[in-house]
């Protein structure tokens, strides 16, 4: 009999809490789909970085499990509370508390198991969608097939089941403290609105706004961030999120008490009171939901930043098929060329030297001017603070400025599909990364590029930076070029100075490069084969009478910096795209689950209220509101309640996302408007929001107007 009762109750609960049931299905599906990517053998075989993907998705799962545990705990307690009268009746007819507890556990587990089973089916569909998206993001062909592994199933079941059991165990305590009278009467009690010190509490609203303003100003203009400041602000932000709703509720209550003009218009008084009472009773839940929305929106905005970076700049990062770095300036790259010819065939290749003349004028300018160094190496007069630079281990630039002969440069341009450039004797060109150019503009006029005028042997010049001896001459700037040229340590770090062949010949070869374009697409293991050859990345070279450690510099790019001697574009792009996709997927995973969980709580709250407080709408009906007017009242009421946390979260996350977007553009060279990332994230978010809103609205109308 109890089993039959449990089954019937489960079916009723699934119907009454359909949004919760569907969300649990969706969460299972999302978990399963992401876990199946984790356990996919093909992905593990295809990518060296599958480990990073596993770590990122694993971390995301950790947060997802936490939040799902919270949702289940919230819902199990919520349903328990809603059904207290029913449990009171069970006690009244002689059931033992243990039996009721067992009945409820059985019901919850059945409901959970049904959602889990449904979620698995949905998860398989979602998995195909995710795989198709992933493969299209990394530009590889995807053949639909089901990824199925015991590990994936066990992980998903463990995460899901663990959350459920934890919540149910916590509930057992509640059953022990049950009392028939309290259970029977708890549903009859309406929300008791306690209003005290509202005048004082009202100040929490402007205070919260002030804090947010200060937070935004600090975010954009404060430079000296340290752990204490960050922790202070984060703590302040959390407190603000939680007290904000108390402030809004108090403000609305004070407005009503003051008998503001607005309350005399139509049903405003009812709406404002509904709104303030809900804010008061649910302020803690709303604070938590806002935090979830903030995290979800930020996660989504950051995912979009990475996606944008992937689409905008990654293809430009490596314009040549193959590049090989060697610190040996006599290297003929024989083994490498052999490998390339054997594996694929070389269409065109160029071996050339990057040179130096012991000066570091451009390095000094960049160290002291780029935002990325945050002024750490800028002395009071704006020049380079060499002492500060010496203290840190910085690998952004080579020790000396990097030069390239014009003929090599033009050959490279030709290989990259660019037109050759001309340069007079006594002139120099700057080839700069576009991202750096966006920040600095043309600064060649500020550079004093001095080269040996030819009377002394190259390499015998004085100490670095002192190329102003009487034997040197100053070069005139002839322009700046910013086309992609693989400048993460190969063709210079961030920049190259292009000088005439004659001038270059008088300089010291610094390191040597092999740049090649292949006949066809590089085989998947070409990079591995090149890497298997002896490394030429570091060496100790004699320079200016002493030994210098030589290693690659990396420039000032962030996000994706590949400081490797060998580059095979066709092998690296999918790898890097996969790495970026890992970040994007993990963030979207968290964002999606957080949003669904938060919206479920909002929705279930409202739907349950619509049934419990149906009489409110009946009263409105009695005092003269038609069904259409009541529907409008409900729409407004829901809109206020739904929009309040999302708009507040949008304000906070929007500020942070604009700041992050701005920083992201500075560091990566993407050009999307900083607010664009957030705007798009918000739009995506609103789509999910709209689905939940419509479902809730329809359910609310059905509940509230059934007998009205």
């Amino acid at each position, binding site marked *: 009999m109890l089993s039959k009762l449990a089954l019937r109750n489960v079916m009723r609960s699934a119907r009454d809490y359909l949004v919760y049931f569907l969300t649990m299905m969706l969460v299972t599906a999302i978990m399963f789909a992401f876990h199946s990517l984790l356990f996919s053998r093909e992905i593990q075989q295809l990518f060296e970085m599958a480990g990073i993907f596993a770590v990122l998705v694993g971390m995301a799962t950790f947060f997802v499990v936490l939040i799902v545990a919270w949702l289940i705990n919230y819902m199990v307690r919520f349903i328990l509370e809603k059904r207290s009268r029913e449990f009171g009746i069970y006690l009244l007819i002689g059931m033992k508390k243990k039996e009721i507890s067992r009945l409820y556990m059985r019901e919850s587990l059945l409901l959970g198991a049904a959602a889990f089973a449904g979620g698995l089916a949905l998860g398989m569909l979602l998995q195909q969608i995710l795989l198709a998206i992933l493969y299209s993001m990394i530009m590889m062909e995807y053949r639909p097939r089901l990824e199925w592994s015991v590990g994936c199933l066990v992980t998903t079941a463990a995460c899901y089941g663990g959350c459920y059991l934890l919540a149910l165990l916590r509930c057992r305590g509640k059953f022990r403290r049950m009392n028939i009278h309290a259970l029977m009467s708890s549903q009859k009690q309406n929300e008791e609105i306690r209003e005290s010190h509202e005048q004082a509490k009202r100040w929490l609203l402007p205070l919260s706004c002030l804090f947010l303003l200060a937070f935004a100003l600090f975010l954009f203009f404060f430079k000296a961030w340290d752990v204490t400041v960050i922790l202070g602000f984060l703590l302040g932000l959390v407190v603000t999120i939680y007290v904000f709703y108390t402030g809004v509720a108090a403000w609305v209550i004070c407005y009503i008490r003051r*008998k503001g003009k607005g309350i005399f218009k*139509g049903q405003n008084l009812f709406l404002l009171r509904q709104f303030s009472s809900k804010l008061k009773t649910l302020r803690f839940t709303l604070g938590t939901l806002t935090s979830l929305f903030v995290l979800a929106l930020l996660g989504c905005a950051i995912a979009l930043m990475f996606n944008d970076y992937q689409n905008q700049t990654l293809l430009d990062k490596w314009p040549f098929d193959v590049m090989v770095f060697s610190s040996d300036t006599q290297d003929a790259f024989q083994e490498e060329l052999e490998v390339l010819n054997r594996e694929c065939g070389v269409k065109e290749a160029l071996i050339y030297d990057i040179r130096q003349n012991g000066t570091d004028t451009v390095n000094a300018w960049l160290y002291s001017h780029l935002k990325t160094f945050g002024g750490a190496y800028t002395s009071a007069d704006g020049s380079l603070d060499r002492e500060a630079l010496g203290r840190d281990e910085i690998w952004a630039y080579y020790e000396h400025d990097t030069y390239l002969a014009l003929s090599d440069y033009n050959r490279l341009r030709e290989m990259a599909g660019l037109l050759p450039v001309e340069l007079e004797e006594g002139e120099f060109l700057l080839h700069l990364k576009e991202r750096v150019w966006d920040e600095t503009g043309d600064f060649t006029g500020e550079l004093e590029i001095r080269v040996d005028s030819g009377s002394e042997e190259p390499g015998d010049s004085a100490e670095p930076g002192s190329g102003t001896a009487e034997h040197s001459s100053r070069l005139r700037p002839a322009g700046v070029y910013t086309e992609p040229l693989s400048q993460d340590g190969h063709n210079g770090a961030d920049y190259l100075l292009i000088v005439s062949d004659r001038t270059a010949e008088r300089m010291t070869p610094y390191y040597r490069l092999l740049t090649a374009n292949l006949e066809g697409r590089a085989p998947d293991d070409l990079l591995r084969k090149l890497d298997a050859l002896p490394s030429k990345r570091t060496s100790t070279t004699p320079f200016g009478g002493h030994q210098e450690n030589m290693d690659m510099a990396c420039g000032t790019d962030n996000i994706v910096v590949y400081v490797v001697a060998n580059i095979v574009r066709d092998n690296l792009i999918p790898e890097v795209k996969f790495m970026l996709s890992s970040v994007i997927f993990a963030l979207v995973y968290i964002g999606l689950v957080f949003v669904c969980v938060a919206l479920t709580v909002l929705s279930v709250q409202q739907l349950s209220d619509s049934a419990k407080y149906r009489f409110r709408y009946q009263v409105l009906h009695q005092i003269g509101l038609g069904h259409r007017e009541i529907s409008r009242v409900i729409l407004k009421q829901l809109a206020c309640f739904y929009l309040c946390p999302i708009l507040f979260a949008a304000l906070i996350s929007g500020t942070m996302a604009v700041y992050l977007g701005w920083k992201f553009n500075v560091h990566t060279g993407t050009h999307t408007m900083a607010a664009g990332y957030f705007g798009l994230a918000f739009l995506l978010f609103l789509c999910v929001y709209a689905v939940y809103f419509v479902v809730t609205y329809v359910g609310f109308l059905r509940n509230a107007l059934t007998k009205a």
Partner: protein
Amino acid sequence: MEQSYIRVCDVEKYYGSGTAVAKAVDRVSFRVDKGEFVGVMGPSGSGKTTLLNMLSTIDSVTAGHIYYETVDITELSEDKLSEFRKENLGFVFQEYNLLDTLTIEENILLALSLHQREKREVLSRCREMLDLLGIDDVRDKFPYQVSGGQKQRCACARALVNRPKLLLADEPTGALDSRSAQTLLETFTDMNSRLEATIFMVTHDAFSASYCGRILFLKDGQIFHELRRGRKSRREFLNEILDVLSLTGGELSDAQ
């Protein structure tokens, strides 16, 4: 002949369909004049609440007509009915039906606000009603903070504040203690005489009914008797009511 204020003509109400049809109200006809205080009594299931619901436009008739002066409310559309309800009717129920999120004063203000009135007029009318019903001292309290009697007086104030053509009361004293019930009924009588409010009250309590000017007795969906107070004292009228009830037997024994 003078036009009656409210005319109920051959009204019928059936519930269910096919073979499972239950007749709740069976060809009932009566009139109510302006300023009358009419009571309806009858045992459980006699159809008194159904009748009240049809009069109050909350439920539709199966057959027959209900006229408020010249308006036949059985012919009105849903939207027009809402408008009609807002303009002409006031309700007092056993369960008070106050909005729990609004204070006592705000419950009255809301009813006024729905009529698009000026703020000053709304406030003055509200204050007047709060004074009249003696609930001014609890105006800022929420329903859960006041007694049942005060809640019912608030419901009464809300119902009367827009000066409706008809005040409908369904067992208004059902949830009140005897003292509060007496106060409320005195308020009804007062409203009836001072504001000329027309009141239609459903009750199965003879004591409450004794405050009415006329009583319709309902049984099995039909009016089987009618009592008029005339110049009788309330006690005499109560005895008369109890006599009628004793004739109807068992189910109303609680009233004896």
